[in-house]
C-alpha cells in the first residue's frame, strides 16, 4: 500500500513556477492523507537531500524535469513507481553567450528526453505544446495538468512598491530576466512608447535577474544608451510585492520565445490586466484565444497596440472579460481534481 508520495527536483526555488508547483502539490498530497516530502540536490530547510531516498517500493516518486541533473540518474535506479512531470526545457542556444553551464545542462536534458520515455510509469506535462514534444520523442499516454494555482493566495495585503505616482501608462513584465524571455525587445518597445506615444509611462520588470549576469548587464547598457529613466528592475520579489505590481499595472506584456506554460499570463488574467504576448511556444495555448498575440518585432506597431489596449476602454474590457472566462479553466478546484485523478490512476497501475 502506497503511503508516501515524494517529489524530487534539483533545487527548490522561491517565487518560481516549478518551486511553487512542487509546494502546492505537496500540500494537496498531504491533504489527501499521503506522507509527502520534497527531495533536492541543493537542500534548504524545506527539503531533504535526494541521497536519503531509500529503495522502498511503498513510495511513488514525482520527478520534475526541466534541466539535466544528477538527481534523475539516482531516482532511475530506485524500484518504486515514478511519475515524470515535464515542465519543458528552454532551448540551450539562448544561454550559449551568457551561461555555458546552464546551456550545456539544457542541451543534455533535451538530448536525453527520448531515452527517458520508458523509464517512468506515468507522464504528466503542463500544456498540449509540451505534450506534443513528448509524443514526437516517442512518449505514449501523456497526461496534461496545468500548474496548480491557488488564487486565494493573492488576497493579501500588498507591499509598498517603488513606482512614481501619477503615471498614465503602467506597463508590467513578470518573469525571470533571461535571454529567451526577450526582455531586450520589451525595452525597445518601451523606447518607442516613450518617444512616440507618451513620456508619462513606466515599465516595471519584476523577476530574478541574478541568474544570467551578462544578459542583465546588456539590458542595463541598452537602457543607458537609450536614455530611458522610467524602467525599473524589481528583482526576485515575494508574493506581496508581485501582487502589488499586478495591482498597479495597466497592462502585461511579454515577448518570450519559449514558455512551457506561462503563469504570469494566468496571474494577469486574475488581476484583470489585458495581456499582450509573443506568439510562441505554449503562449497562445495559455491565452486560449484571449489577449493579443504578437507575431513579429515591429516595435512602433506593438507600442501603438499597447496604447490602444490601455486607452480604448471598450477593447480593454472585452479582453479582460474574455480572459476572466479563460481563467476558469485554471481554477484551483479543477486542477486539484485532475491531479487527484492522476494519483488514483497511478496507484491502480
Amino acid at each position, binding site marked *: 500500500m502506497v503511503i508516501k508520495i515524494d517529489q524530487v527536483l534539483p533545487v527548490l526555488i522561491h517565487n518560481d513556477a516549478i518551486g511553487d508547483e512542487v509546494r502546492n502539490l505537496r500540500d494537496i498530497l498531504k491533504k489527501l492523507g499521503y506522507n509527502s516530502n520534497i527531495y533536492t540536490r541543493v537542500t534548504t530547510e524545506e527539503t531533504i537531500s535526494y541521497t536519503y531516498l531509500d529503495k522502498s517500493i511503498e513510495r511513488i516518486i514525482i520527478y520534475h524535469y526541466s534541466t539535466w541533473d544528477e538527481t534523475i540518474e539516482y531516482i532511475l535506479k530506485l524500484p518504486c513507481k515514478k511519475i515524470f512531470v515535464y515542465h519543458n526545457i528552454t532551448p540551450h542556444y539562448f544561454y550559449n553567450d551568457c551561461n555555458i553551464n546552464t546551456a550545456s545542462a539544457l542541451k543534455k536534458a533535451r538530448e536525453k528526453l527520448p531515452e527517458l520515455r520508458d523509464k517512468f510509469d506515468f507522464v504528466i506535462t503542463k500544456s498540449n505544446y509540451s505534450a506534443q514534444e513528448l509524443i514526437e520523442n516517442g512518449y505514449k499516454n501523456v497526461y496534461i495538468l496545468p500548474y496548480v494555482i491557488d488564487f486565494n493566495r493573492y488576497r493579501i495585503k500588498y507591499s509598498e512598491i517603488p513606482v512614481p505616482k501619477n503615471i498614465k501608462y503602467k506597463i508590467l513584465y513578470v518573469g525571470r530576466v533571461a535571454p529567451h524571455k526577450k526582455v531586450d525587445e520589451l525595452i525597445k518597445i518601451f523606447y*518607442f512608447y516613450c*518617444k*512616440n506615444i507618451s513620456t508619462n509611462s513606466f515599465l516595471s520588470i519584476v523577476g530574478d535577474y541574478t541568474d544570467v549576469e551578462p544578459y542583465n548587464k546588456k539590458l542595463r547598457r541598452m537602457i*543607458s*544608451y*537609450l*536614455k530611458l529613466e522610467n524602467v525599473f528592475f524589481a528583482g526576485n520579489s515575494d508574493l506581496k510585492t508581485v501582487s502589488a505590481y499586478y495591482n498597479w499595472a495597466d497592462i502585461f506584456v511579454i515577448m518570450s520565445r519559449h514558455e512551457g506554460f506561462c503563469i504570469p499570463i494566468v496571474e494577469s488574467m486574475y488581476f484583470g490586466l489585458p495581456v*499582450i504576448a509573443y*506568439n510562441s511556444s505554449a503562449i497562445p495555448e495559455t*491565452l486560449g*484565444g*484571449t489577449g*493579443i*498575440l*504578437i*507575431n*513579429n*518585432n*515591429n*516595435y*512602433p*506597431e*506593438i507600442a*501603438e*497596440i499597447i496604447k*490602444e489596449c490601455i486607452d*480604448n476602454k471598450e*477593447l480593454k474590457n*472585452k*479582453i479582460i472579460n*474574455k480572459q476572466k472566462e479563460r481563467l476558469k479553466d485554471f481554477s484551483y478546484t479543477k486542477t486539484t481534481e485532475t491531479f487527484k485523478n492522476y494519483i488514483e490512476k497511478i496507484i491502480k497501475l
Partner: protein
Amino acid sequence: MEVKKIMDTFEIRDKEINSEAIKKEIQERIRKKREQGVYDKMLQEYLLSKNESIHPNRLYISLDNAKKLAELIDIDYKIESHRGTIGKLIIFVKQILRAILRLVLKPLYDRQEEFNKFILDYLRITTERIERIELERELNIPFIKDGNKD
C-alpha cells in the same frame, strides 16, 4: 510567383473584437507619424546620443593608443646616466643586472608580448565587427523606415 504576405504584427483571436478596424487605425496612426518624420527624428536622436558614448571612432582611438603603448615597451632600451665618471659605473652595474635579470625575465616578457599582440588583434577585429553590425542595423531598420511591406 506567389508573393508571401508578411504576417500581421498582432492578432486578436476573439471574434467579438473588430481586430481589422483596430489594425487599420493603428497602421494609419503609424503612417501619419512616419510622414511627419517622427521615427526619423527618433532615429537621429538615438544616433546622436550614441555619438556621445560609443561611437566606433572612440574605440579606434583607444585601440591606437593601446598599440602605441605596446610598441613603446622595449626590453633593450639604452641605459644612460648624467653623473659623469660615477655614472659610467652605474651604467655598468645596471647593464650587468639587466643581463642577469634578462635570463630570468626574457621568456616571461616574450609571452607577455605575444599575449599583448593577441589582445590587440582581438580588439581590432571586435571593433570592426561592432562597427559593421551597427552600420548594418542603422541602414536596415525596415519597420522604422518603411513599415511592413506586403
